[in-house]
C-alpha cells in the first residue's frame, strides 16, 4: 500500500477506463443514438474511479472496513514523514504538502488556459478566421473559460487555505487530513477529462454549456461535463474541510473576533461554494443524463426548457464569482496591513462586507438572463439586488484605503500587486454597474464589453491577488524570497498588458462586437489588434513570473522564518514548517493587527 503514488494513479485510471470502455462497447447497443455519449461518459467515470484506487484514496477507508485500521506509523507515513520530495507525488495528508501541490496544479491550469487564450487572441488578430477554424475556436473558448474558472477558484483557496489557514488558527493540520488529499487528487483527476474533451471534439457550446446547443455538441461535451462534476466533488470536500478546520480546530484564545481576515474570507468563500457547486453538479449531471439516456430536461421539443439550464447554471455562476474573489480579497487585505505596518482598518466592517457580498451574490443570478426573455417582470428586482452589491464592494475599497492611510508603506513585491488590484478592480467594478442596468445590459449583453469587464475582475483583480499571495507566502513555503527584480518586471508587463488588452476590448464591445466570434467585421480590426498585442505582453509577464518562481524556488535568497515581520501565526513557526506545525500550541491574547500599539501606550 505504501508504494502507491501519482504514477500508479494514472496506471489505475487508464486500466479501469479501458475496462469500462470494453465492457460498455460490448454490452451497449451500438446502433443507438446515445451510444457514443454513453461510451465516453462511462470511460470517463472509469478514469476517475481507477485514478482514485490507483493513488490510494480509499486505502484508509478500505483498511478500516476490513478491520485493519491504520496505526500511528501508517498515519505518519501518510502525512509524508521522512519521505522527502516523494511526498509531493503521493496521497499525502500533510496540509502543507497539499498546499504546495495546489500551487503546482494551479500553475498547470493557468498555463493550459493561457495557451488557449493566446491561440484565441492570435486568431482574432485579423478579421477573418485564418489561424484556427471556427470549430476549433469554439472548442478553445469553451475549454479556456472552464479551465480558467477552475484555476481561479483554486488559485488562492487551494494553496493558501490549505497551507496557511490551519497554521493561522493554531491547528496541527486540517480537520480531515485525508479528505484534504482527496480534494486535491480529485481535482487532478478532473484535469485530463477537461483537456481531453478537446481531443474527442465537438465542443460547440461555450463554457456556459447552454442547452440545447450543448445537447448537439459532440462527445467532448460528455468529458467536459464529467470534469465539472468531478471538480464539484473536489471543491465540496475542500470547502467542508476548511470550514470545519476553522470552526473546530482553533487554538486557545483564537476567538472568531481574532481570526486573521484571510481566514474569514476563506470560510465565507468555502461556505458560499457549498451553496453554489451543487447547482454546478446538478446542471452537468442532467445534461449528461439528457445526452446518454434520452431524457429531455433541457430539450424544448421533449417538453424540457433551456431556461431551466440557464437558471441552474447561473445559480452557481454568480456565487462562484465571489467564491473566486473573496479569498483573493482576504489575502490582499492581509498583505496590506503587513506592508503598511498598520492594523486592518475597520475589521468588523471588513468581515461584514465580505459576508454581505456572499449573501447578496446568491440573489443576483438572473442578471445574466436579462436578455433571454425569461421572466421579464423580474428584471427590476434583480437590477436592485445587483446594484446593492456595489455597497459591500465599496467597503473592500474603504478597508484597503483606510489601512494604507498614513501607513509606512513598504513597497516590496506583494505590494505592487495590491496597488495593481486597486487600479483594476475599480475599473472592473464600475463597468459592472453599467451592466446591472437593464437598458444598458440589453445593448451590452453578449458583447466584448462583458468579456472585458469580467477579465478586469478575474485577471486584473483575482489573478493579481493570487500572485500577491504567492509572493507574500512564498518565503514561508520554500524558505526563499521570490526574486524581487524578476517579480517586478513581471508585474509591470502584466499590469500594462492587462490595460492594453482589456481597455481596447471595452472599445470593441462598445462599438458592437459580439463575443465568441471567430471572425468579425472590419471596423473592429484595430481594437482587436491592440488587444492581441496586449495579450502577448501579459504572456511575457507570466513567463517572467514562471522563470522567477522556478529560479527562486531552487536558489533564491534565503528568507528566514518571518521576513516581513508579520504577526499572524504562520510567520511565528519555523521555516520549513515542521510536521504538525507547533511543538506547543500557542495561546492567543489579541488579534494579529497590533501594529503601532506601543506608540499609543508610550
Amino acid at each position: 500500500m505504501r508504494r502507491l503514488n501519482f504514477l500508479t494513479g494514472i496506471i489505475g485510471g487508464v486500466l479501469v477506463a479501458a475496462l469500462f470502455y470494453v465492457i460498455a462497447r460490448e454490452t451497449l447497443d451500438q446502433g443507438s443514438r446515445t451510444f457514443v455519449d454513453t461510451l465516453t461518459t462511462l470511460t470517463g467515470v472509469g478514469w476517475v474511479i481507477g485514478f482514485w484506487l490507483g493513488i490510494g484514496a480509499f486505502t484508509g477507508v478500505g483498511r478500516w472496513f476490513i478491520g485493519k485500521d491504520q496505526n500511528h506509523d501508517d498515519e505518519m507515513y501518510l502525512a509524508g514523514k521522512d519521505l522527502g520530495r516523494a511526498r509531493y507525488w503521493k496521497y499525502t495528508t500533510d496540509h502543507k504538502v497539499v498546499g504546495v501541490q495546489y500551487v503546482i496544479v494551479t500553475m498547470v491550469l493557468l498555463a493550459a488556459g493561457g495557451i488557449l487564450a493566446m491561440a484565441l487572441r492570435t486568431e482574432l488578430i485579423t478579421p477573418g478566421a485564418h489561424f484556427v477554424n471556427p470549430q476549433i475556436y469554439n472548442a478553445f473558448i469553451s475549454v479556456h473559460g472552464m479551465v480558467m474558472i477552475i484555476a481561479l477558484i483554486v488559485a488562492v483557496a487551494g494553496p493558501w487555505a490549505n497551507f496557511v489557514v490551519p497554521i493561522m488558527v493554531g491547528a496541527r493540520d486540517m480537520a480531515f487530513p485525508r479528505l484534504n488529499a482527496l480534494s486535491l487528487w480529485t481535482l487532478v483527476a478532473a484535469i485530463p477529462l477537461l483537456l481531453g474533451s478537446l481531443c474527442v471534439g465537438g465542443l460547440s457550446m461555450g463554457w456556459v454549456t447552454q442547452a440545447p446547443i450543448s445537447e448537439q455538441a459532440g462527445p467532448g461535451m460528455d468529458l467536459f461535463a464529467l470534469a465539472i462534476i468531478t471538480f464539484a466533488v473536489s471543491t465540496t470536500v475542500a470547502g467542508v474541510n476548511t470550514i470545519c478546520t476553522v470552526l473546530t480546530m482553533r487554538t486557545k484564545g483564537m476567538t472568531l473576533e481574532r481570526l486573521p481576515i484571510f481566514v474569514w474570507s476563506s470560510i465565507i468563500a468555502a461556505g458560499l461554494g457549498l451553496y453554489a457547486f451543487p447547482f454546478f453538479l446538478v446542471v452537468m449531471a442532467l445534461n449528461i443524463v439528457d445526452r446518454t439516456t434520452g431524457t429531455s430536461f433541457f430539450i424544448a421539443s421533449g417538453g424540457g426548457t433551456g431556461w431551466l439550464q440557464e437558471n441552474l447554471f447561473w445559480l452557481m455562476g454568480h456565487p462562484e464569482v465571489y467564491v473566486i474573489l473573496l479569498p483573493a480579497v482576504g489575502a490582499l487585505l492581509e498583505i496590506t496591513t503587513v506592508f503598511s505596518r498598520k492594523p486592518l482598518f475597520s475589521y468588523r466592517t471588513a468581515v461584514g462586507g465580505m459576508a454581505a457580498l456572499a449573501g447578496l451574490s446568491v440573489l443576483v443570478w438572473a442578471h445574466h438572463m436579462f436578455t433571454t426573455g425569461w421572466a421579464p417582470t423580474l428584471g427590476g428586482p434583480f437590477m436592485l439586488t445587483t446594484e446593492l452589491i456595489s455597497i459591500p464592494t465599496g467597503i473592500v475599497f474603504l478597508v484597503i484605503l483606510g489601512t494604507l492611510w498614513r501607513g509606512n508603506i513598504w513597497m516590496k513585491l506583494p505590494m505592487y500587486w495590491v496597488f495593481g488590484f486597486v487600479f483594476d478592480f475599480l475599473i472592473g467594478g464600475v463597468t459592472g454597474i453599467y451592466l446591472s442596468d437593464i437598458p444598458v445590459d440589453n445593448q451590452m449583453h453578449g458583447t466584448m464589453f462583458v468579456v472585458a469587464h469580467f477579465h478586469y475582475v478575474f485577471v486584473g483583480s483575482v489573478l493579481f491577488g493570487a500572485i500577491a499571495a504567492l509572493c507574500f507566502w512564498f518565503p514561508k513555503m520554500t524558505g526563499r524570497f521570490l526574486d524581487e527584480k524578476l517579480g517586478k518586471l513581471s508585474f509591470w508587463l502584466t499590469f500594462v498588458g492587462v490595460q492594453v488588452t482589456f481597455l481596447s476590448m471595452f472599445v470593441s464591445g462598445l462599438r458592437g462586437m459580439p463575443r465568441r466570434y471567430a471572425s468579425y467585421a472590419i471596423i473592429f480590426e484595430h481594437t482587436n489588434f491592440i488587444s492581441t498585442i496586449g495579450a502577448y505582453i501579459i504572456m511575457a509577464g507570466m513567463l517572467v513570473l514562471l522563470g522567477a518562481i522556478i529560479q527562486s524556488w531552487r536558489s533564491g535568497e534565503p528568507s528566514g522564518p518571518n521576513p516581513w515581520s508579520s504577526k499572524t501565526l504562520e510567520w511565528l513557526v519555523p521555516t520549513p514548517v515542521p510536521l504538525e506545525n507547533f511543538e506547543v500550541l500557542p495561546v492567543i491574547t489579541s488579534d494579529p493587527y497590533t501594529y503601532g500599539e506601543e506608540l499609543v501606550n508610550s
Partner: protein
Amino acid sequence: MATSNENKKAIYSIFWIWLVITIVGVLISIKAPAWLMPTSASSTMHLVIETIVVFSVAAAPVAALVYAITLYALVKWRWRGDGVPPDGPNLRNNSTLTSVWIVSSTMLTIFLLIWGLAALAVDEGGGNGKNPMTVNVTGQQWAWSFTYPGTHVASNELYLPVNDKITFNVTSKDVVHGFWIVQMGVKVNANPGVSTSVSVTPNKIGTYDIRCTEICGLYHAYMVTRVHVLSDTAFAKWLSSQPSRA
C-alpha cells in the same frame, strides 16, 4: 495635535488630486460614449448612451477619490528607509468615516437604481412610435428570417418603416440565438419552442446591423444580417414589390 495636522495636510493635497482626476473623468464621461458607440437609430439606443454618460459622471468622483488616495499613498507614505519600516499609527477604525462611506455609497446606488427603473418606465414597450407593427423573427443555424404578419412576405434582411413601433416576436428552429439590432439597443434571445418579444421604434432612416449574440455553433460569427429602415412610402413600396412566398 500632530495627528490631526497630518490628516489635514493629506486631505488638502488629496482634494486637489481628486479634483483634477474628477474633472478629467467627467469630461471623458460626457464625450467618450457617443464617440465610441454606434450611431443611435432609436430612442432606446439614445437612452442607453445617455445612461452610460450619467453613470460615468456619477462614478467619476468616486473613482477619482480611490485613485487620488492610492496615488498620494504611493508617493507620500512610501517607506524609503532600509529594512522593515516602523509601525504606523494604530488606527483601527473611524466609525464616522465608515458610516459616511456606507451611507453615501448607498445613496449613490439608490440614485442609479431609480435612474434605471425610470429609464425602463420611460422606454416601456420600446418608444412611442405611431403605428404598431409586428415582425416575426426566426433564427436557425446560421441565418435569420423575417416574416411580416398580414402579408405573405418573407426576407433574410429586415426592412422596417421609420417612426413606427415595431414588435418582434422572436423564436428559433434549433438552438438558442441572440437577436440584436446593434444601433437600436434591443436584444432578445431566440429560444426554440417559445416566442419572446421585444419592441423598438426606429427613428432614423438608414442601414444597420443585426448580429447573433448567443453562441450557436460552427458559424455563429457569420450569423449577421442587415436592417434597412425606410420611409413609410419606401417601405410600402418594398412590401408590395416582394413576391408572395405562399
